[in-house]
C-alpha cells in the first residue's frame, strides 16, 4: 500500500514538476538554474523520505527497485547515445584529449583529497574508503552544460570558440566518470566481503565479472542489432526500446552490475551501428526529464542530512572539485598550442555538475545500500547545491576574463 501510494505521488510529482520546472519563468539566474535543473525535487524527495513524511522509507524504496533500475537504464541509454563516433570526430582530436585530461585531473585531485580525509578522520573499512573516494571523485569529474546553455546568446558573441570547447568538454567528461564507476563493479562487486592485493582473489574477481558482463553485453547487443535491423513502425520500435531498457537493466542487476553502465554500453553500440538511431534517440529523449526528476526524488528520499559537519565536508568536496576543474582548465590552455587563445580561467566554465553524477550516485545508492553509502550520498547532494551556487558565480567570472 505504502509502495503504491509513494509510487503514485512521485509519478505525479515528476509530471507536474516537469511541466512546471522546464518552463521559461522569469527568475534570477541562480534561482532559474536551481529551478531548471530540478534541484527542488531533491528536497521533495527528502520531504517524502524517512526523515520527514516517511512515505518512502527504505522498504518502500526497495519495493520500487524495479522502477529505479529502469530509470537508470533509460539515462544510461541516453548517455550512450551521445557518443556517436561519426559526430565526435568532426571536432579536433585535441578537444577529446582536453576533455579526458580535465576529467582525469579532477578525478585524481578529488580522489586523493577525499581519500586522505577519510584515511585520517573517518573510521570506516578500508575498501569502503576507496569506494567512497572513487564514487565522489567520479561524480566530481562530470560537468553539465546547464550554466552554459542558460547564457544569453549576446554574451557568447565573440567567444564562440571558447564556449564550443566548454560544451564539448562538458558533454564528454562524463565518459571518464562512468568508466571509473565501472571499475568499482569489477574490483568491488556489490556484496563483496574482502579485498586484498596480496593474493590473486582480485584477479579472479575481475576476470569473472569481466567475462560475465562481456557475455551479457554481447548477448544484449546481438539481440538488439538483429531486432533493429528489421523494418519497424513506430509502435514496434516503442515496444523494442522499452523492452531493451527493461531487459538490460534486469540482466545488469542480476549479475551484480550497474544498469546505468550496461545501458550506456548498449546505447553506445546502437548509436554507432543502428540506422534507427535518430528514431530511438527521439523516443528516449521524450521522457528524459520525467525520468531525471524521478531519480532526483529517489535520491532525495535517501538523503541523510546528517550533522553540521556534513555541510563542512561537502564544502571541502566542492572546493576540491572546483580546484580540480580550474587547474584542469588552466593546464589545458597552457599545454596545447591550439588552446592558448582560450582564457586561462577556462575551468570556471566547467563547475556545473548536472544529471549524470546524480545518476551515478543513485546507482551507487541502489547497489551498495548502507549507512556509509547514505552518508556519502548526503554529502554529495549538499555539494550539488553548492556547485549550483558556485557555477553561477564562476561563469560570470569567466565572462569577465574573456
Amino acid at each position, binding site marked *: 500500500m505504502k509502495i503504491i501510494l509513494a509510487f503514485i505521488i512521485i*509519478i505525479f510529482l515528476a509530471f507536474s514538476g516537469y511541466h512546471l520546472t522546464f518552463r521559461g519563468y522569469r527568475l534570477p539566474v541562480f534561482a532559474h538554474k536551481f529551478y531548471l535543473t530540478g534541484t527542488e525535487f531533491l528536497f521533495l524527495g527528502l520531504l517524502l523520505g524517512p526523515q520527514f513524511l516517511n512515505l518512502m522509507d527504505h522498504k518502500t524504496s526497495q519495493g520500487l527497485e524495479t522502477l529505479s533500475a529502469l530509470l537508470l537504464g533509460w539515462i544510461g541509454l541516453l548517455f550512450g547515445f551521445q557518443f556517436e563516433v561519426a559526430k565526435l570526430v568532426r571536432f579536433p582530436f585535441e578537444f577529446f584529449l582536453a576533455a579526458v585530461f580535465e576529467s582525469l585531473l579532477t578525478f585524481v585531485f578529488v580522489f586523493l583529497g577525499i581519500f586522505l580525509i577519510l584515511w585520517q578522520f573517518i573510521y570506516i573499512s578500508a575498501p569502503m574508503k576507496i569506494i567512497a573516494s572513487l564514487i565522489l571523485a567520479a561524480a566530481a569529474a562530470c560537468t553539465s552544460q546547464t550554466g552554459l546553455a542558460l547564457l544569453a546568446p549576446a554574451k557568447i558573441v565573440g567567444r564562440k570558440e571558447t564556449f564550443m570547447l566548454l560544451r564539448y568538454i562538458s558533454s564528454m567528461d562524463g565518459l571518464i566518470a562512468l568508466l571509473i564507476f565501472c571499475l568499482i563493479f569489477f574490483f568491488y562487486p556489490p556484496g563483496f566481503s574482502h579485498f586484498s592485493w596480496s593474493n590473486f582473489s582480485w584477479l579472479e574477481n575481475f576476470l569473472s565479472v569481466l567475462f560475465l558482463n562481456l557475455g551479457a553485453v554481447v*548477448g544484449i547487443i546481438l539481440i538488439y542489432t538483429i531486432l533493429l535491423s528489421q523494418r519497424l513502425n513506430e509502435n514496434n520500435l516503442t515496444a523494442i526500446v522499452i523492452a531493451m531498457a527493461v531487459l538490460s537493466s*534486469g540482466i545488469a542487476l542480476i549479475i551484480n552490475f550497474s544498469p546505468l553502465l550496461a545501458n550506456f554500453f548498449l546505447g553506445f553500440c546502437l548509436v554507432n551501428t543502428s*540506422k534507427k538511431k535518430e528514431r530511438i534517440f527521439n523516443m528516449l529523449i521524450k521522457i528524459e526529464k520525467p525520468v531525471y526528476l524521478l531519480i532526483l526524488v529517489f535520491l532525495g528520499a535517501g538523503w541523510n542530512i546528517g550533522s553540521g559537519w556534513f555541510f563542512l565536508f561537502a564544502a571541502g568536496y566542492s572546493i576540491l572539485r572546483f580546484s580540480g576543474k580550474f587547474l584542469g582548465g588552466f593546464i589545458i590552455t597552457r599545454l596545447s598550442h591550439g588552446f592558448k587563445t582560450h582564457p586561462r580561467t577556462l575551468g570556471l566554465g566547467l563547475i556545473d555538475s548536472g544529471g549524470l553524477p546524480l545518476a551515478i550516485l543513485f546507482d551507487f545508492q541502489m547497489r551498495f545500500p548502507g549507512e556509509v553509502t547514505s552518508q556519502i550520498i548526503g554529502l554529495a547532494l549538499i555539494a550539488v547545491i553548492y556547485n549550483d551556487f558556485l557555477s553561477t558565480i564562476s561563469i560570470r567570472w569567466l565572462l569577465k576574463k574573456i
Partner: protein
Amino acid sequence: MNIIYPPKKNITNYLLTLCVLIFFALVIKFLKIETSCQDAGLVNFSLGFILLVSYITSKILKLAGLPLISSYILTGIAAGPYVSGFLDSNMIERLRLIDDLALNFIALTAGGALHIKFLRARFKAIALNIALNTVVVFLMVFCFVIFSGSSFNLTRNLSAVELTAIAVLLGVIAIARSPSSAIAIISECNASGPFTETVLGVTVAIDVLIIIFFTFAMTVAKTIMAGGQIIDYQAFAALSLEMAVSLIIGAIIGKGIAVYIERAGHDLALFLLAIAFGVAKASISLSAYMENHFDISLHIEPLLICMSAGFTVQNFSKAGNFFMESLERFAMPIYLIFFSLAGASLNFEALIMCWSFALCFAIVRGMGIFGGTWLAGTISGYPAAYNRHAWMAYLTQAGVAIGLAQLAQRQFPEIGVYLSTIVLAVISLNQIVGPVTFKFFLNIAGEAKKKTGG
C-alpha cells in the same frame, strides 16, 4: 548491419534472437538470486523477456495468419507455470501491478473508441445485439447448467440450490466480452466500417452493462442461497451509487485529461499511463481504506472510471483524436504485456479438471452468441453473410470475466471454487479460439485493411 532482410531471412533472424533470449533465461535460472536488487532485476528481466519473446513469436506466427494477440497469449502460455515455468505464479503475481496498469490503459482506449455519433447512427443494431445476446446467451447457459450440471463430475455433488445459483452467475459471466482483445485485433487489422463499429459498440457497452447485470445476478444468487428471502434492494441502490460515482469520477478525470491536452499537450502518452496506474491503485486503496476504517464496502470500479474518462475526452472535448493517437503510441507494449500475462495466467489445471464441462459450456455460449447476433443482424437488415459469421467476433473473454468470477468466489465461498474453476477453464478456451475467429470475421466482413511497416 542494418540491411532490411527479406521475410524468410527475417524468420531466421527472429529465431536466432529467440535462441539468445532463451539462453539468457536458462543462464539466469541457474544464477543464485541473493539480494533484493537481484530480485528486482529478475522482475525486470522477466518483463523484458516476455515483451521480446512475445514480440518475436508474433512476428513468426504472423506468417501463419495468427492474430498478434493469439501469439502473445501462446507465448504467455509457453512461458507460464504449466509449460516452461519461466514465469511462475509468484512472478505473475508480482507483474500484476503492470497488468492492472495495462488493463486500465486498454479501458481508456475502449472508452475513447466510442463515438456518440456512431453510437447514435448504429443505435438500433447495437441495442438489439446487446439485448438479444444478453437474453439468449444467459438463457442458454442457464438452462445448460441446470439441466446437465448433474452429468459432470465437477458439479455432480452440488445441491439444486447451489446449482441454480451457479447457473445464474455463469449465465451472466457468459455474457461478458473482452473489449481489450477486440480493440487489439481491430487495431492489428486496421479495421473500420459499419460491422467493426457495431462489434466494438456492443463489446464495450456490454463490458459496462455486465457489471450491472452481475450485481443483479449476485443479489439473486444470494437470495437463492439464503432460501428465497426477499431480494435486497439496498444492494441494487448501493451498486447504482457505486457505478454512478465511478462514472462521475471518470468524467472528471476525462475533463482533466482534456484540459491537460489543451494546456500542455506534450508527453500525453506518459501522462495517460500515470493516470491509468493511479486510477487502478487509488480505487483499490480507497475500497480497502473505507472497509478498514469505516466498515463501508465501497467498490469504485477502475475499469468504469477509465472507460468513462476515455469516453468523455472523445465526445466532450476537441482532443479526441490526439488522445487516441497518444494511446496508440503505447498500445503495442501494453498489449504485449497484458496478453502475455493473460496467457501465463490461464489456468490449465482448471481446464484439465473440467475440460468436458468447459468445452460444452463454451459451445453452448458460442451457440447462444450465434443465435443472438443472427437475430439482431436479421432484424437490423444486415447481409445474411454477416449474420452467419458475426458470432465469431464475440467469443473472446478475458479480465472482466475473471474479475467477476473472483468477486463471486469471495461472496459465495461454498460454490466459489467451482465457479472460478469453470470460468477460468472456459476463458482459456475462448481466449485461444476467440482472437482467431474475430480476425477471420473481420476478413470476411471485408473491413480489415493491410498495415504498412512492422
